[in-house]
Structure formats: structure tokens, C-alpha cells
């Protein structure tokens, strides 16, 4: 297990790479969901305003 974590001495290069990638993967999922939800909220608001006006 320790050998795995040490990555043959390259640990301080390998693990930050994986951490960064994992972070960006997660962030993109979060951003995509957030963008969709915001667009849905805006669209509902617009529709409600249209209904109120008609």
C-alpha cells in the first residue's frame, strides 16, 4: 500500500495530477448542473411573466 502511494518516488507529481483532474471533473459536473438549473429557473420566470401579461 505504501509503495502504491509513493509511486516509486514520483508521488508529488503523480498525485497532484490526479487530484487536479478529479477536481476539474467534479467542478464541470457541478457547473453543468448549476447552469441547467439556473436556465430552468429563468425559463419558468419568463413563462410566468408571459402568462401574467396575457
Amino acid at each position, binding site marked *: 500500500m505504501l509503495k*502504491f502511494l*509513493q*509511486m*516509486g*518516488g*514520483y508521488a508529488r*507529481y*503523480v498525485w*497532484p*495530477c*490526479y487530484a*487536479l*483532474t478529479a477536481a*476539474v*471533473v467534479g*467542478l*464541470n*459536473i457541478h*457547473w*453543468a*448542473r448549476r*447552469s*441547467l*438549473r*439556473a*436556465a*430552468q429557473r*429563468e*425559463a*419558468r420566470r419568463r*413563462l410566468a411573466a*408571459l402568462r401574467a401579461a396575457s
Partner: protein
Amino acid sequence: MAWVWFHRFGSPPHFYRLATRLAPWFGWPAALLCLGGLIGGLALAPPDYQQGDGFRIIYVHAPAAWLSLMVYVVMASAAAVGLIWRMTVAYAVAASCAVIGASFTAVALATGMLWGRPMWGTYWEWDPRLTSELLLLFLYLGYMGLRNAIDDTGRADRASAVLAIVGVVNVPIIHYSVIWWNSLHQAPSVMKFGQPTMPAAMLVPLLLMLAGFSAYFVALLLTRARGELLRRERNARWMAEALDGAAAGKR
């Protein structure tokens, strides 16, 4: 027959429903593929003859670099379709690509630098691939900057579409010119592996990661594109149905 399919796909309510249904079918397989790739790449593949365990960075660097390029091509293609056929769905797809592509270009650069440090002794080398990635990042940033600067969504779509098309034509030229330039300066050979060809134990996890990241991108794209489509659509009827469905918990 193909045209019918093309036009149905381009119809916003149809695309919206399709995207909602399909996204999990790309998302979960992506997770599985990446899991397999990670296990294979981190644990099962043997250390490289020259680079030891350091080569394992490839399992995140290569997918990121692959995404950075593939996403740009998708973005430019969608933009071209939008420009030629005035298709809102295409513009929504193009708009969705930018942040994803730019962030993974940055990841490719960062992981490339971290990989270079132990292998070359320095964080930055004007190596053709890293240099091309840097210029690709500028292309993305320019695209996003232009979009941001134009207030009207329709005009922003069309202007950035022109930019994306001009950019995609230039990507091979830029890449070739950088390789040519680099070959003159006898830069250290890039990421050479100890073995002449990659053994299966190393290659298979790499392919799994590439496939996994690609599926992940499609899932992300479908999710974002739904929102971008909502932002662009004025026709209320299908939106009300789609959103009420969402409110009812179908997501």
C-alpha cells in the same frame, strides 16, 4: 431518410427530451470506464522501464489533452452547423462546449508540466505538444471572451461561430508550425517510454480512460445544452411542458 432524422434532432423540444433521457446513459458508463481505467493504470500496469511509476500521469494527461482537442472540433462543427442551417440546437451545443474544453486544456497543460518536471528537469519546455496546448487554450479563451463581450445571444452565437471555424482551420496549421519550429531546436524527446511499443497492460487502461472521458463529455454536453437551449428559446409551449416535467421530479 437521414434528413428527417437530422431535422427531428434539430427540433428543440425533441432534442431537450432526448438529452434528458440520454445523459445518464453516458454518465454512468463513463464512471465505470474511468474506474476500470484507474484500477488498470494505477495498480495493474507495470512501471515503465525509463520513467518508473511517473508515467502513470499519462492516464489523466492523455484523456485531458484528447478532450481539449475533441471538444474544440465538436464546438467548431456545431457552430458551423448553426451558422449554415441557423439551428438553435447547434448553437446551444457549441455554447456548451467552451468551458468544458477550456478547463480540460488547462488540466492537460498542468499535468503536462507536472509530468515534465521529473522527466525533463524543468516545468516548462517549449515542447510542441505543450506549446500547441497553450495556444489552444488561447483559442478557447478568445472564443469565451468574444461571447462574453457581445450582449445579444444571437449575435454572440454567430460571431463566435465565425471565430470557432477560423480557429479550427488553424489548429492543424498551428500544431504543424510548432512541431516544425521545435524540431529545429533539438528539444528533448517527448515522453519516451522505455519499451518500443506500449504493452497491453499499459495500453488498455489508457483506452478505457479515453473512452470514459469521452462518454463523460457527452453527458456533460447534453446537460449543459438543455440549459443553453432553454435560454435561447422563445416559443413557450414545449418549454412549459418540459419544465413542469422537471418540477414533478423527473429531472
